[in-house]
């Protein structure tokens, strides 16, 4: 029998040995991964799924870096409502690579968007920050308050980039809306949560692989410019689009978006030292899970799914074993699924505003 490259491959390279019959709690992480020490400062950003990572890191005793904390006088529930502690700084959801790059540039004064204040949806003279439109639930009382808070926020973003050891970024979407004037990308379409949509001033973007990789490469270069030792973990959110403006069916649009992000994540990790891809997307979306980790709406990820993802993450990165996800049938009854859904920790997801009837408003129990 002739020898060939497949003979020496590990079991993880074979579907039959690594996937078939393994059940939903699969560990698809092959190859090298980074080592996470308890003293290393981990910052998170991205779509809603990144909030779960932050939650588990805190719960497991790791050094989750939060540079923008609520002032100690503020009650904890109010701080949570105002977006503190969800990520390492109070930037809200960062869905696209372009948003992340522009956040960096805005923090360091390299990009000053022309359209940088929106009227709040509720009116009354209140205003919102177009780059984190739900961070103040009722909007800011006025422009001066918004600008003061933004200056403080961006200072804390700089502090985060300069002091983190590991940056976890969850790529969430390829679709976004930008300013025609200067390309400023917003996390949510103007007019949905403040501002006013103007087809002459706003245009739809559906970023391609090359654009995502270019934006991420630019971000990595800038980050390493202020923090040469920074390591990066990329994940892709498994949460489907709430809605698509692409003209395609939302299922096809979701497949395109996630495919682009997954391909981009792979290329970025392959092209940059110190950048790793973590396959949380595969764990939730892959055939072994058979949609078990989605709630009844086939969009929101259950606590069981998040727990599985994070158990694999912490086992590989830190040698920590989380309690195994609860045993159960491969397909739960709708009531049980709903019950699991109710266990989700509330996360902030601006994208849900696109279809409030489906998710109950701006703070649904959902992830992205």
């Amino acid at each position, binding site marked *: 029998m002739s020898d060939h490259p497949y003979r020496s491959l590990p079991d993880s390279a074979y579907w039959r040995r690594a996937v078939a019959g393994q059940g939903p709690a699969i560990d698809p992480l092959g190859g090298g991964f980074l080592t996470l020490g308890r003293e290393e400062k981990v910052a998170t950003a991205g779509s809603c799924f990144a909030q779960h990572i932050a939650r588990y890191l805190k719960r497991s005793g790791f050094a989750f870096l939060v540079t923008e904390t*609520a*002032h*100690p*006088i*503020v*009650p904890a529930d*109010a*701080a949570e409502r*105002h977006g503190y502690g969800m990520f390492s700084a109070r930037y809200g959801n960062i869905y696209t690579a372009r948003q992340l790059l522009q956040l960096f540039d805005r923090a360091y004064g390299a990009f000053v968007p022309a359209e940088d204040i929106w009227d709040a949806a509720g009116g009354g003279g209140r205003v919102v920050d177009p780059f984190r439109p739900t961070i*103040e*639930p*009722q909007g*800011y*009382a*006025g422009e*001066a*308050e918004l600008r*003061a*808070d933004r*200056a*403080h926020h961006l200072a804390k973003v700089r502090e985060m980039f300069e002091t983190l050891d590991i940056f976890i970024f969850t790529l969430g979407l390829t679709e976004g809306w930008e300013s025609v004037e200067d390309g400023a990308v917003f996390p949510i379409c103007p007019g949905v949560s403040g501002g006013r949509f103007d087809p002459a001033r706003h245009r739809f973007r559906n970023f391609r692989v090359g654009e995502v990789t270019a934006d991420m490469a630019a971000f990595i270069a800038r980050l390493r410019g202020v923090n040469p030792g920074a390591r990066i973990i990329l994940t892709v959110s498994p949460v489907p689009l709430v809605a698509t403006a692409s003209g395609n069916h939302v299922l096809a649009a979701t497949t395109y978006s996630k495919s682009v992000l997954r391909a981009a994540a792979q290329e970025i990790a392959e092209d940059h030292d110190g950048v790793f891809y973590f396959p949380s997307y595969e764990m939730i979306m892959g055939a072994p899970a058979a949609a078990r980790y989605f709630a009844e709406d086939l969009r929101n990820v259950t606590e069981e799914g998040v727990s599985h993802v994070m158990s694999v993450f912490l086992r590989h990165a830190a040698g920590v074993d989380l309690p195994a996800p609860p045993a159960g049938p491969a397909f739960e009854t709708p009531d049980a699924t709903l019950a699991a859904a109710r266990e989700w920790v509330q996360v902030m997801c601006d994208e849900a505003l696109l279809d409030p009837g489906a998710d109950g408003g701006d703070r649904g129990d959902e992830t992205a």
Partner: protein
Amino acid sequence: MSRAILVIGQSHVAAVRAAARARREADPDRTRTRVIHTIEPQYAPEVEGEGDAARFAPALVDTIRDQIDRHAPLVASASGGNVHNGFALIRHPRPYDFLLSDEDGPPLDPAAEPVTEALVRATLEAGLERDRIRLREIRRIAGEGVVQLESPPPLADGAIIAAQADAYFRNRGIAELGVAPAGLRYKIWRLHSRIVAGYCADLGLRFLPAPAEARDAQGFLRPDFAGDATHGNRAYGEAVIRALEAL
């Protein structure tokens, strides 16, 4: 005005009590102003129960009702009026500041951490739960027509505050930490007043601003109207009584 006055409250009734005593000593036949201090020992515990079920203690209710039955007074409330001082009299180790909406106020301190007005409001409201209960109870017992007195404005001069601070603030380190900037103290007092005025509107109570003659051109409490770091004196109490008489 010949109608008697009853002022119900806590520490801020001291100024009114001092003024009422001076009036009585000067003219025993003058219509009386009386006060009820709700946290004096004979009423303890001041409030029984929690949340919507919270009520003034029976002894306190009986005293208020007795005063109303005997004198049919104009009932005023000096309840609360201290929460803002708890947050903003002493300089916080992590200095903060905020901007007032809907009215002019001191600018942001550039050296302080900006906090949104909404979050400062949430902070104050969390601390005002007991005062809300007091207002609700006074409204329930005394009925319509109750007047809520705005708490005295802050003093502008931090040195006076540091020198006159009572044991509560001395024990919390006001000498070591220093007095908070006047601008912050003024703004948080204004926001506190707006929140309380909102509670009054919800309850159908009238909200009476601090006497104009007790305030300087910037709105701070004039030192000659100050009893200590946070309270009015007899002159302040006299100004309050006159304002009530003028209603």
